[in-house]
């Protein structure tokens, strides 16, 4: 009988690809998620168990003798050291104990090549993962440890961070940019993890990388090329002082930093996989790098479900927000038609909550708009506002409100622009900490 998988972190990027591979292979899966209902909408065929790694009481009963446990859940990005320790080390400890108690057959732990980076300053993620690897190796169950390199593929969070850097007019590169990367596609990683999970336990560490090794500077150039931009202009910044500076401000500003001191380890270390016979077997079947660098298809999360009354109210509120009056009938009709024909999906779990705030009107809408502009510029709320603008500019009752400048002369115009600038800064100053806090507390925001 086919082995059953017990997967943690299944609602994350790699987890999603593992579930896809398991589904294609007809392998039954039980998966742990902190928000099972949301996860179920993405992968309805999977048996979901709700719970946090730290609360084994809620999910331990779902483990069965003979299960293969694939442990993907982790905090990877911007989080303080204590969170890395709690989730990545202690979470692994709890899962190991529960798996052993349930008599699981094989424990597959997904770690990271960062674990063996020689240069790990300010990198709590690497420290916690290394500690977790030790727990697995010394633990009671037959094991396999997988260390992927940089995980890319459409929608991969790490790729999008790099794409953001690569999208700047001057791309900051910390240090000389000679460190090597060997990005692996999440789709490949998902398939390879499934093979490893179903193979007998390897009792060794297997590092998995992609088809190409390239220097960071070239890597950024490739992202730009695939996304239709010109050659990058690299702005070399000193690595060590930047890391020290980031490490110093992280405790306060973590949410708004585009990257952390720890993540800069990528610029200081070669992130390539040590060759392994298992990886060699599949080398020719890997996705070509360029296909892994495409921009994500938006709406990876399921489309929102909203009734026409809610959408009509939303349309009025957002129209008042944009042009200070009610939405004309033609705009509402277009708004509803678009939602019917092309439902918009969120890209970040926080977007539902951001939209709910935007629907309240007044200052709440302004704050949501200002927050979305900076943190989720391609998110659901932004796309709704853009759709609305496109409708407003093409309808008889509203197009002049999009075209007409403010009344008054040049001086009034300049004063008006200045007032708008101040208003924008003031609202953003309110919105960023307030909504940033709510965003930070949204579950599942940083599974890998």
């Amino acid at each position: 009988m086919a082995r059953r998988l017990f997967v943690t972190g299944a609602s994350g990027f790699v987890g999603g690809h593992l579930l896809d591979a398991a589904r294609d292979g007809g392998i039954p899966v039980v998966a742990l998620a902190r928000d099972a209902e949301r996860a179920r909408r993405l992968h309805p065929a999977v048996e979901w168990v709700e719970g946090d790694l730290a609360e084994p009481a809620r999910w331990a009963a779902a483990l069965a003798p003979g299960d293969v446990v694939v442990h993907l859940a982790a905090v990877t990005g911007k989080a303080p050291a204590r969170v890395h320790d709690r989730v990545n080390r202690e979470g692994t400890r709890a899962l190991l104990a529960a798996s052993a108690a349930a008599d699981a057959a094989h424990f597959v732990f997904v770690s990271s090549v960062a674990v063996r980076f020689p240069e790990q300053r300010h990198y709590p993620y690497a420290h916690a993962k290394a500690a977790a690897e030790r727990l697995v190796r010394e633990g009671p169950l037959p094991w396999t440890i997988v260390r992927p390199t940089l995980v890319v593929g459409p929608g991969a969070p790490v790729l999008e961070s790099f794409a953001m850097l690569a999208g700047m007019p001057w791309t900051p590169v910390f240090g000389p940019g000679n460190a090597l990367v060997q990005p692996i596609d999440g789709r490949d990683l998902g398939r390879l993890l499934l093979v490893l999970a179903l193979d007998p336990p390897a009792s060794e560490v297997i590092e998995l990388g992609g088809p190409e090794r390239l220097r960071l500077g070239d890597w950024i150039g490739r992202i730009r090329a695939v996304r239709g931009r010109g050659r990058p202009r690299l702005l070399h910044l000193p690595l060590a002082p930047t890391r020290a500076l980031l490490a110093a401000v992280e405790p306060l500003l973590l949410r708004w930093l585009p990257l952390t001191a720890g993540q800069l380890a990528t610029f200081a270390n070669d992130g390539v996989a040590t060759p392994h016979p298992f990886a060699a077997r599949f080398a020719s079947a890997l996705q070509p790098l360029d296909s892994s660098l495409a921009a994500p298809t938006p709406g990876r999360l399921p489309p929102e479900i909203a009734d026409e009354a809610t959408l009509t109210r939303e349309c009025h509120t957002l129209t008042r927000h944009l042009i200070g009056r009610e939405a004309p009938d033609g705009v509402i009709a277009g708004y509803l038609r678009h939602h019917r024909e092309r439902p918009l999906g969120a890209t970040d779990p926080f977007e539902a909550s951001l939209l709910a705030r935007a629907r309240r009107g007044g200052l709440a809408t302004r704050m949501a708009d200002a927050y979305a502009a900076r943190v989720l510029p391609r998110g659901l709320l932004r796309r709704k506002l853009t759709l609305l603008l496109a409708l407003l500019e093409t309808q008889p009752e509203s197009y002049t409100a999009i075209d007409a400048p403010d009344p008054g002369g040049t001086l009034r115009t300049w004063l008006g622009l200045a007032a708008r600038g101040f208003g924008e800064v003031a609202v953003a100053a309110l919105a960023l900490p307030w909504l940033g806090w709510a965003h930070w507390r949204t579950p599942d925001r940083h599974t890998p």
Partner: protein
Amino acid sequence: MTDAILVVGSGPSGVHAAATLLARGLRVRMLDVGRPRPDVVRPELSLDGLKRELPDPSRYFLGDDWEALVLNDAEGEYYGFPPSKQYVFANPADMDLRIDGFAPLFSHAAGGLAEAWTGGTYPFDDRDLESWPFGWRELAPYYGRVAQRIGISGSDRDDMARHFPVHEGLQPPLEPDVHSARLLERYTRARGRWLAQGARLGRARVATLSQPLGHRNACHRSGRCQWGCPTDAFYTPSVTLRECLDDDGFTYVPGHEVTHLAVDTAGRARAAIARRADGHEERFEADRIVLAAGTLATARIVLESVARSGAEPPELDGLMDNRQVMMPFVNLALLGRPFEPKSYQYHQLALGLDRGGARDYVHGLVTTLTTALVHPIVQSLPFSMRTSLGVFRNLHTALGLLNVNFADDRRPTNRVGLEPGADGRTRLAICYVPAEDEPERVGSGLRTLRRLLLGLGCIAPPMMTRERPMGASVHYAGTFPMVADGGDWTTDATGRLRGIDGVWLADGSTFPTLPSKNLTFTLMANATRIAEEAF
């Protein structure tokens, strides 16, 4: 009907070759995919009239399928083509290509890609034609004939006339809009500094009527240019195609995509083989075939013909395209001014930056953005949508766009070849590598232009300037260059192809260099010249 000359393609080259042959009393049969332009919606209305009077204007402007709605997650090059022009670029789903460093556009529309052009008609001067087998004097009469056929307006005496030799049939320039007039006025004051940099500004030459021509009326400023001129005051090749259709010597065979030519053992083309949409192949006998399908499609037909004749198809080199950079700017003096929707929408001013050699002349087109959809622009501003809209409303009239074009030359790295594709068919493989000195050439050109704009009271923020990918300017040329004494896969001065007898190339394939001035006018003039001299 085998005495008819077979012309493949109805783009600017094809229709002007055909019109010239017909005028000489020769018979022409034109093979074309020829997707027709949809009927013009309510031609009597202005742009704002459409917004007021159509039952659902959003559907007209954004498309039945939201084709022209640009949401924040859009990727790739934004061309801003409205739904009413989608037919120009709609390609068959089975088109198979391998591209590297090049993002080509194709068209199966009657009239070709130029159905969606912006009307720039700039004759090449002697310096532009330096490496060509003929000069301005030989080409000038054909520019004049094309101008009389299509109607071109522009100035023959301002500063830019130095770069655009004057041919016959030039109509007076269109009346400039407020923004363009203001820029010209500032230019007269800053002129000394401009000339010191080798730069000039003047009226654009455009294929838009300022006076009636034949059955066509002068531009009446409906503001609808981008959605398709409702009155044909703005010229597109389908106008000439319609005129050809009135000629008894002309047979138009739409719905046929020529895949290759049947070549006999003596190396002579005997017929064109065309595929219909239903997959059926048809053979059209002809002993004189003019390929004017556009540089990439013509290359494909020739290569496929060689492959079908059993020989190894060559790999063509020297593919060219103009690098294009979009430089948006704000004219500070116009901040907060009201906005004029009833105006001519394409570029009204042209700019030249002369750095010596033909390859160093940079050609710019100044468009004062007015009626383009605003939502794609507003979402790109770095503020909340509410603030962005508030800022944009006051910026709208002050916004301008400088479209900068750089010359290209033939280099061995830029290749078009044929390789095995899906289902046992072949596919076109296109590879383009920019010239090594391009970053330096583009960078220094842009810096100078930014400074010059500042002298006119316009700010062009560097972070808004965007280099378009190669292929985006749609000025493809150079695969079968005209040379006096060349080997196979070159052409002679009459466009006759060396390598397959009985075939003439009348499109951009034969250009030995690609100056920075928009090539379409020269495509038309050169096709007219070939039709006059080759037969």
